[in-house]
């Protein structure tokens, strides 16, 4: 672009079910009760950043199930990653997980994602959004960060750092699985709170409809607490992304990016960090199986 006087910007034309601004989140504040937040599928978010020359500090759109449309007010380079969805610019299909050029005045539209849950629209330069504690992420639990994105919102885009040379053209990535998903778990600090006859593994669970960025609720025959802890209370203790908590209801909860910093129910297992991004792409109704050494 020449001149450089006009601010690079885009305007949101439509959102699907939910569009949030996300970046790497707010690690380091858990001791004062602030959740890490940040992109739910970190790998997909970081891939989008790499494709357009951003860093993980640059904010992008996290799009639930597709449906986002934005009008580029100026020329922009973007990439869509995460849950695969049809992408078009000015009505013409363009590449997924690839840098895409969007001319001034053109509308970029994400169709509905047939599988997976969250897609990322990353704009070269990053979205200029209000930062709270160093991050533009919306924390749906505490309400820190910007409100959900709405049609009519205008975002200024910072100048791109992309040099042009050495950029990735297309990233071959595996799409999130649509059927049964296997998740590797490791032992949690309160594994002994789970009744020995009541196994978390070796069976499938259904992702509950009440799942969100805070956590995934698993439906299935409930698990029981061990006899020696029944009727007792656990003192609240720290929570991590991927912690599998077992409330007295017996329905496990797997925590995601907006998890509370502490919780009072036992964490019986923890999803392996290599599988955390898979969690963020699970759809309500989808089946998952937890296992060690999957």
């Amino acid at each position, binding site marked *: 672009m020449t001149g450089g006087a006009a601010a690079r910007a885009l305007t949101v034309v439509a959102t699907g079910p939910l569009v949030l601004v996300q970046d790497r989140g707010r690690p380091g504040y858990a001791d004062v009760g602030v959740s890490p937040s940040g992109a739910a599928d970190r790998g997909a978010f970081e891939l989008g950043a790499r494709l357009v020359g951003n860093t993980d500090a640059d904010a992008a759109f996290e799009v639930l199930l597709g449906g986002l449309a934005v009008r580029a007010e100026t020329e922009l380079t973007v990439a869509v990653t995460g849950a695969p969805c049809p992408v078009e610019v000015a009505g013409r299909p363009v590449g997924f997980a690839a840098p895409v050029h969007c001319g001034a005045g053109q509308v970029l539209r994400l169709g509905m994602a047939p599988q997976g849950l969250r897609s990322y629209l990353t704009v070269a330069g990053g979205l200029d959004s209000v930062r709270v504690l160093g991050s533009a992420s919306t924390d749906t639990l505490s309400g820190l960060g910007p409100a959900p994105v709405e049609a009519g919102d205008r975002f200024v885009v910072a100048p791109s750092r992309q040099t042009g040379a050495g950029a990735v053209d297309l990233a071959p990535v595996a799409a999130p699985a649509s059927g049964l998903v296997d998740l590797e778990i490791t032992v949690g600090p309160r594994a002994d709170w789970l009744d020995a006859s009541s196994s978390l593994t070796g069976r499938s669970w259904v992702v509950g409809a009440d799942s969100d960025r805070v956590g995934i609720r698993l439906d299935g025959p409930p698990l029981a607490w061990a006899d020696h802890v029944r009727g007792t209370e656990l003192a609240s203790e720290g929570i*991590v992304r991927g912690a599998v908590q077992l409330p007295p209801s017996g329905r496990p909860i797997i925590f995601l990016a907006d998890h509370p910093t502490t919780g009072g129910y036992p964490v019986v297992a923890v999803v392996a960090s290599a599988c955390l991004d898979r969690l963020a792409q699970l759809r309500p109704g989808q089946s998952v199986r937890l296992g060690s050494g999957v």
Partner: protein
Amino acid sequence: MPVTILPYGDRALLLELVAAGVGVDVRAGASAQVSAAIRAAGPRVTAGLVDIVPAERTVLVTTRPGTDLVALRADLLALLSAGEAGPGVDTVAGEARLVTIPVRYDGPDLDDVARHTGLTVAEVTAAHEASHWEVAFCGFVPGFAYLVGGDPRLEVPRRSTPRTVVPAGAVALAGRYSGIYPRPSPGGWQLIGSTSAVLFDPHRESPALLRPGDRVRFVASPT
């Protein structure tokens, strides 16, 4: 400070504080001291850490990808067993900040608290004001600090029916804790007063007014 270290996935460890003997509870506020000791340790311990989260009787440490948890576990055990005999933990505790909170003792649950405790309302507020509180840990919402070290006569149950909205600045009691609601939120604690202090402001250099390990005094302000 003796601790047991429990596994917590491939990027975290959970330190559980061990009571000094049978029938003895972990000292309130001990987890904040352990956190402070870890934070003050050398880079060998802290280089890979992301968050250090004290809770009632545990401290969670989370790490950056690639951190050697086996080595970290050994380093933490060495650090905390050294702190037991040597300077470490206690020295850090001696540097705690003192935060003074102005409070109007005008809470709607003062009469209930008086009934639960067998004290008069004046005795409740006097005991709350005279207590040497300390932030044991934070949680629930950003900036909410669980204060311990209060007059043991102030121990009261939560309300049987939680309120759907507790106003920001409400000063409350539950169990052995006192706390201040940083912003309007649902809550089941007994409300005894209110403060104009801003407990959490993300745009301040130190967003949370109260941090683990801080000492806190309440000072009655005229209504």
